[in-house]
């Protein structure tokens, strides 16, 4: 059965209230949603209505639940910060906002180059989509009104260049000229805060001395960006002395 566009559009309310049964209709609407910005913003607004309805029916769970939830959380491993790949509301031409901001900031050229390098390296559609998603996130960081550019030398050689969008709690980092590592070793980035240190991912292999941009989310006040050498695959917590500890002005 084919649905007219108008019919599809009118499902936004039922969708926002989880009133579409799983199946073809919901799948079709979900696909439509990723292409239709006005539908997505309508669904967002409706979900806020739903949230108000949830608050209106708030009730006190039994006293023991709090302890059970906190205890379970203490045993539960969290998913790491990640590159977000969902569609965001975006400008029609993602690249435009960079240009005025970038002019005069020579060091950022390395990030732009890293981004372009990513495109050039993609061979399959999946890889290309992945690179696109990452670049969208990077371009959002670069075009954030309060983005700050930081460069910092790395102990034993090389430089780290960071674009920090403090209000988005995100940063992008590229490095140039880091010494090559022996087999079985990798560079790993960290968000070093008090009291926690969180992995911000592994540095991808360098090409022409430069590593492709890495994104880190969840940057908070008091964090420093750290870099260590770790065994292949990375570590849960740093096992060597940081060769970079760049305080982040959040």
């Amino acid at each position, binding site marked *: 059965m084919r649905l007219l566009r108008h019919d599809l559009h009118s499902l936004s*309310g*039922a969708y926002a209230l989880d009133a579409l049964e799983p199946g073809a209709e919901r799948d079709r609407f979900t696909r439509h949603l990723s292409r239709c910005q006005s539908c997505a913003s309508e669904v967002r*607004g409706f979900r806020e209505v739903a*949230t*108000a309805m949830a608050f209106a*029916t708030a009730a006190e769970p039994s006293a023991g*639940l709090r302890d059970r939830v906190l205890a379970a959380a203490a045993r539960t491993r*969290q998913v790491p910060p990640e590159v977000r790949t969902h569609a965001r509301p975006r400008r029609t031409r993602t690249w435009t906002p960079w240009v005025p901001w970038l002019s005069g900031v020579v060091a950022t050229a390395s990030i732009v180059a890293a981004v372009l390098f990513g495109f050039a390296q993609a061979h399959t559609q999946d890889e290309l989509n992945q690179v696109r998603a990452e670049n969208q996130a990077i371009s959002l960081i670069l075009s954030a009104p309060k983005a700050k550019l930081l460069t910092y030398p790395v102990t034993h050689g090389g430089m780290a260049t960071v674009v920090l969008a403090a209000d988005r709690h995100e940063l992008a980092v590229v490095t140039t000229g880091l010494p090559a590592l022996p087999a079985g070793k990798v560079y790993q980035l960290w968000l070093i805060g008090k009291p926690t240190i969180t992995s911000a991912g592994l540095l991808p292999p360098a090409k022409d001395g430069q590593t492709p941009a890495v994104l880190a989310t969840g940057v908070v006040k*008091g964090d420093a960006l750290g870099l260590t050498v770790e065994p292949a695959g990375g570590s849960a917590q740093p096992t060597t002395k940081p060769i970079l500890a760049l305080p982040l002005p959040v």
Partner: protein
Amino acid sequence: MNPNDSDASRFKSATTDRRGERDLDLLLVHVARGDTEAFEAVYDRLAGPVYGVIRRVLRDPSQSEEVTQEVLLEVWRTAARFDPAVGGAATWVMTIAHRRAIDRVRSTTAAADRERKTAEFHVPHDEVAEAVEASLDAERVRRCLDGLTDVQRESITLAYYGGHSYREVSDLLKVTLGAIKTRIRDGLIRMRDCLGVS
């Protein structure tokens, strides 16, 4: 300046703010970093509405607590996926909560129970009145629901609080599918304007 001194005061302001959406967003960013104190603050702010809406849909208190626990653990586990650019933290959490409740309702074990409740269904408006207490949120929501047409109000409450699909709502209210779709959407547009959300 000192990274250590900000925490206590931040959590305090997070609990004293009226709606405190922005602070809740920030709390979730800290939760994503494994900050258990921030998670406790999120629990204290959101466990009530999470449990409330789940119980509304599932009715059974102990099953509702079980699902509430699952939801809050998912918040802990996946806080890194929360994206403030897409919507507020409360909305993110409530969306997870409602969806989990619906999943439970539609699962096979709950299906029989469901049939019975559907058969028992009478007057949705009473059901709204029953749970809505004298809180500010509740008052606003009730006033806005009262501003809807009967069919709009009944379809929205049956879908959201009752956990019914719009097909079920169409059966219950004896109104065509196409009309229910539109009533839900029109009603939500009115609610949105009435509640003053963007």
